[in-house]
């Protein structure tokens, strides 16, 4: 037993007051003349035994009352098993209802087990506890036990990934900031190894009670990647790259699994895919426009990752006019020829043709503009841009090697730039439409259907022509960028994603690509980060009534690996935190609030003192004597 206010134990000295008063009263009573002493003596002789017992009982009751009050003031706490409850505790419950919690083992979802434990803990909490609940959305909910019970009861597996390291760190901060002397973090999770981040000492010193289902996690296969290759199909068909992952049973680790690809709601391809390898499967699109596709596996114990959406843009080949190519080098010309030969573009002139090179810019016409080979011509090109209304200008060339950063153009990822003409917005213009940067300078910008590059596609200025991504990039230039389209974005549920400027809404796409009938339009503000929808699928990006791109929301592939972190992993992940890892409900119940460890007896002592005083009053009033 310990005392939270040990100084109050000095009040125990007050327990001596009743005996002292008793002795004082007995020794020095006032004297009074009374002739009938003989009657009084006879009375006392007869009632002496009763009176002595009553006096002794009163004395004991008064000493007990004072002692109980003094002890209550000292706020004693005892081991919890001896008390009616536990000391006020700051409790942060991390309930992992991420995608993996939907895995079925023995006919029950992991989340059902975890939620049952959470409910038990909330019911075992006391009004003095501070309670938080953190779930897959990462939000720390503060509430009463009843409020959090409602939340837990309504919990379902979410397609999101829960970073358990971050959740535990958040819980530790909340527990520490609670101001309560005791705190616990309960991590109720299937304990995926992939759900943890880097080791974090944020929880050092805070008791961490980890509960996970006793049964081993089931083997799981998942489509961890699915992507149309290329993202824009110009011939009405293309390929879909599919990767199968997860954590299969060891005996079936290398077994190939059947994968079905559907595009636009129609089965497009089937193949046996080896786990861990990207299988490319030829597929056909039902028609031009945006199409939603899906790569799926046979169902297993975790259904949520057995299918993965992807999007594809089906367009007719762009009509490209190769303007005077002097100085553009042979690579661009060859690439255009290769694309034309592959049917990706058509070379020629006509309405809507994309002019590549140093064309005479025509207002409203699509064009791809490069810097001049001779810096002397820089002013002429800038005047052409100004005449066409393009608010970007070439600055004097810079000789410095930089890596291109183009989040929405995967074909440019990691490409090196050796020499560039930094693109600067015209005086008074907003720097809008930047698609790629080299260092701090805009390198690739778009204004309407005019695309301007900061370097010529020659090896002297960029290493891009020497890479395998060069031809696809040229295809993107003429087939997508010069058409004013944004391409396909990817995100996991709830992930923050930067939407292009001008996008005003997300619309769930039907398999054929059109907005899904009845699909809820999600208003968004393009040009900044937006949380991706929770439901996996393909969402069309709407800008001024036109579909300018697609957002593919798919589950985080890390959620498909159900292998569990070991006790040693936990110790390494949370250095300094006292960790108790249990897997049975009984062990969890026994360990619960043990971190608080003790229970305050103040309330019980005060109640006992009240009862003692009540009995003292009855005894003093002579109730026992009257009842005889």
């Amino acid at each position: 037993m310990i005392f939270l206010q040990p100084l109050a134990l000095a009040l125990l000295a007050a327990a001596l007051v009743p005996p002292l008063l008793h002795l004082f009263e007995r020794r020095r009573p006032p004297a009074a003349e009374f002739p009938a002493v003989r009657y009084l003596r006879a009375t006392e002789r007869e009632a002496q035994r009763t009176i002595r017992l009553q006096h002794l009982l009163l004395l004991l009751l008064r000493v007990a009352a004072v002692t109980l009050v003094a002890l209550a003031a000292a706020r004693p706490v005892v081991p919890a098993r001896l008390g009616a409850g536990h000391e006020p505790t700051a409790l942060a419950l991390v309930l992992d209802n991420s995608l993996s919690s939907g895995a079925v083992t023995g006919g029950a979802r992991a989340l059902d087990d975890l939620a049952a434990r959470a409910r038990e803990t909330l019911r075992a909490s006391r009004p003095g506890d501070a309670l938080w609940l953190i779930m897959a959305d990462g939000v720390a909910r503060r509430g009463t036990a009843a409020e959090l019970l409602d939340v837990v009861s309504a919990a379902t597996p979410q397609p999101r990934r829960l970073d358990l390291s971050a959740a535990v760190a958040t819980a530790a901060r909340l527990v520490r900031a609670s101001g309560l002397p005791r705190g616990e973090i309960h991590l109720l999770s299937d304990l995926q190894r992939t759900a943890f981040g880097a080791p974090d000492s944020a929880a050092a010193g805070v008791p961490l009670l980890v509960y996970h289902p006793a049964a081993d996690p089931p083997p799981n296969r998942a489509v961890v990647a699915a992507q149309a290759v290329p993202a824009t199909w110009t011939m009405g068909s293309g390929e879909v790259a599919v990767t199968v992952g997860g954590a299969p049973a060891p005996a079936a680790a290398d077994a190939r699994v059947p994968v079905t690809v559907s595009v636009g709601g129609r089965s497009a391809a089937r193949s046996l895919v080896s786990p861990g390898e990207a299988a490319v499967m030829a597929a056909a699109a039902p028609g031009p426009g945006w199409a939603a596709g899906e790569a799926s596996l046979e169902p297993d114990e975790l259904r949520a990752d057995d299918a993965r959406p992807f999007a594809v843009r089906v367009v007719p080949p762009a009509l490209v006019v190769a303007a005077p190519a002097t100085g553009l080098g042979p690579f661009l010309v060859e690439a255009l020829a290769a694309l034309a030969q592959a049917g990706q573009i058509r070379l020629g002139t006509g309405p809507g043709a994309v002019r590549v090179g140093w064309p005479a810019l025509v207002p409203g016409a699509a064009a791809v503009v490069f810097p001049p080979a001779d810096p002397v011509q820089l002013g002429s090109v800038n005047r052409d841009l100004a005449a066409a209304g393009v608010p970007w200008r070439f600055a004097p060339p810079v000789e410095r090697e930089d890596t291109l950063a183009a989040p929405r153009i995967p074909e440019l990822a990691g490409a090196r730039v050796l020499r560039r003409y930094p693109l600067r917005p015209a005086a008074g213009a907003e720097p809008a439409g930047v698609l790629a940067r080299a260092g701090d300078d805009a390198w690739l910008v778009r204004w309407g259907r005019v695309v301007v590059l900061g370097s010529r596609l020659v090896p002297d200025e960029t290493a891009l022509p020497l890479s395998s991504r060069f031809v696809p990039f040229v295809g993107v230039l003429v087939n997508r960028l010069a058409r004013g389209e944004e391409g396909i974005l990817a995100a996991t549920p709830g992930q923050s994603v930067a939407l292009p400027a001008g996008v005003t809404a997300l619309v769930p796409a039907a398999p054929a690509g059109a907005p899904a009938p009845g699909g809820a339009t999600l208003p968004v503000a393009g040009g900044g980060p937006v949380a991706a929808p929770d439901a996996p699928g393909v969402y069309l990006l709407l800008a001024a009534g036109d579909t300018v791109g697609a957002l593919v929301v798919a589950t985080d592939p890390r959620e498909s690996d159900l292998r569990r972190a070991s006790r040693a992993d936990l110790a390494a992940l949370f250095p300094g935190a006292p960790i108790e890892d249990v897997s049975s409900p009984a062990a969890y119940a026994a360990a619960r609030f043990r971190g608080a460890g003790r229970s305050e007896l103040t309330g019980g002592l005060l109640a006992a003192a009240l009862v003692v005083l009540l009995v003292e009053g009855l005894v003093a009033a002579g109730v026992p004597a009257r009842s005889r």
Partner: protein
Amino acid sequence: MASLLRMSEARLDLLDPRDVSTLGGIELVAAGVVEGFLSGLHRSPYRGFSVEFAEHRPYQPGDELRYLDWKVVGRRDRLYVKQFEEETNLRATIVLDASRSMGWSGDPERRLTKFDYATRLAAALALILLRQRDATGLIAFDDAVRCAVPARARAGHWRVLVRALLDLAPGGGTAAEGALTRVTDLLRRRGLVILVSDLLVERDLVLLALRYLRHRGHQVTVFHVMDPGEVQLDGAGPARYVDPESQESVVASPRELRREYRATVERAVAAWRRALRSGGIGYHRVTTDTPFGHALRAATAGRARLG
């Protein structure tokens, strides 16, 4: 003064003894009480004791119904009571306890001491007896006989008795047994003996003396005078209670003993009553807040039973 006037017009025998005592000394109070008492009875309360029928008179409120002559009522349709004439003169002696314990009052502001109450009661009894031309004497004692006034029936003897009462004051301890032995020597002729005492004495020895008197042919009546504070233990906290006579003391808490003490007193009173009546001795308990008339009426009724 107005209240005193109002009291003087009332029957003093029915008023609070303390209030009555404020009107004057023993003589005045006793005379007033007896006047009131007799006006209620119309004539001597001792009529009916060793007397013969004399005449009828109309019934007045306060007359005892047992003296109604029902035959006359039947014949004349009016209420008449029978009156009796004395047959013999009585020789009465009032034996008054003047011990120190008699000088106690539980509430001096509101109640008479037992001694003051007893002297006024004795004076009233003597006046009634003398008005019947009964020879009346007085013996006062504490641990010895303090005064002894022989029984006389002549006019003016009441004032002698009153003067003797006025000269008395509660004194030492009670040795009633010795004093009563002396009384038996003084009372050679049979008569009425009225003992007025708080009976805080050795019970067996006093009983022996009283039974001896009875054996000698005396009519004996005992007025057991108690203060209400002796019947009901007052106060709350513990106190050291000291006997003024023996200086014995006991520490007790009224709050704890109140109920048991009351039972002890009731048992003691019952024991006195039982022991005295079994010996043919009249017993009347009066408390000092009892109107004198009630005490006299109780004594009268007892006399009637004894007679």
